[in-house]
């Protein structure tokens, strides 16, 4: 099967049980997306599939022949600088997922027919699929809020 990751096309041969997350980490050496819970509950594995944020741990790679995936390694987005500026992390394990999720979330809000106001409460709701064990949420919200305000 073929998978386009961060703009590069790869031809992969894998056991059909391989998730997108394992394909990225174990077959392509892209370890940005993290394996947290491996059950779609923590968001650490979040990547962008055709531009939309998804949990890569719950997608079988075999279903994605020809699809385009963006991982944190392929991103250059203002939200990354804002995470640094506002210290939007402590241990950093959830950060790649937080970054990918916030990029997807901001796109969802921008492309909405009736764009929402991204208040802190709205950002928290829309980012609730990404858990941060260190509790860096206030600074994560600050970082995203600044990008959203642009």
């Amino acid at each position, binding site marked *: 099967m073929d998978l386009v990751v961060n703009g590069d096309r790869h031809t992969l041969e894998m056991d*059909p049980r391989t*998730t997108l997350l394992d394909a990225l980490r174990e077959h392509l050496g892209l370890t940005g997306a993290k394996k947290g819970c491996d059950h779609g509950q923590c968001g650490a594995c979040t990547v962008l599939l055709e531009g939309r944020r998804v949990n890569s741990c719950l997608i079988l790679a075999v279903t994605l022949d020809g699809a385009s995936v963006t991982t944190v390694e392929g991103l250059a987005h203002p939200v990354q600088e804002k995470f640094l500026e506002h210290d939007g992390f402590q241990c950093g394990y959830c950060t790649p997922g937080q970054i990918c999720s916030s990029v997807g979330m901001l796109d969802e809000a921008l492309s909405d027919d009736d764009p929402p106001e991204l208040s802190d409460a709205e950002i928290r709701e829309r*980012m609730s699929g990404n858990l941060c064990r260190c509790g860096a949420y206030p600074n994560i919200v600050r970082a995203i809020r600044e990008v959203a305000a642009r």
Partner: protein
Amino acid sequence: MKTFTYRTATALDDGLEPGATFLAGGTNLVDLMKLGVATPEVLVDVTKLPLDEVTDLPDGGLRIGAGVRNSDLAAHPRVRRDYPVLSQAVLAGASGQLRNMATTGGNLLQRTRCRYFMDATMPCNKHSPGSGCPARSGDHRNLAILGGSSSCIATHPSDMAVALTALDAVVQVSGPAGARSFPLGDLYLLPGETPHREFTLEHGELITAVDLPGGSGSSAYRKVRDRASYAFAVGSVAAVLTVAEGTVTDVRLAFGAVAPKPWRAHAAEEALRGRPATRESFLAAADAELAAAEPLRDNAFKITLIRNLVASVLEGLS
């Protein structure tokens, strides 16, 4: 995860070989396969089928393709405008990532999150018929108060299906024996003595669409959960209400997280039609439905919870 073979479905009436299961968004099925609770021998991927459209129906209603992703459904202009209860319910479920993956058909067919069902090493009459149900004396705080049996008190976890139940949704299915349609409530079986049988679909029948009738009243969904976001419901209420001159002329109510299926509250509706749209009538209607509740040691609080939710949601709509 047990090994399986994979193929893509090529037509709506493809059907399924023995031991095969359809795969759509995979948010529940892939998880259950990792847990060893689901062990399909063949996965038939239906996401390449042309089922991802939302289209207007001649009667003013809406046809939602079974492959429409939850996020697209919630954001659809007509769903937002004409069926707010549905948009609210979808957005109350899961997370942004999961809603981008999960489909309309898959959501209806998702399995209970009862901890004993989710654990292949535990007895459970659903995943291992006849092995018993540890939930009755064990952890049942979030399990059923309505529609359960001595064999099983699992709850259906969907928010979306609760809204669709209140909207009188009709399910379209297709299979080797042809196409048919039926009210959403008829998709689900109550557990009785056979809790491993959950759906009325024949092997190989595929949900292709969900139809909503036109011309609903005002509607809303309210969900109570243990944390502010991204948690399954402890109890929820979907309501569609029409009030004329202070009197309830039409009402449709469904409860979530209290029964093995999205629970249409017919007794409450009956008790409310023609009554004044007051908190007193709303509470009396809730009581009419909840009289049949059979709570266990740790889930009796759901009776009070649903009672108050019914009153609060209906007051908000009237």
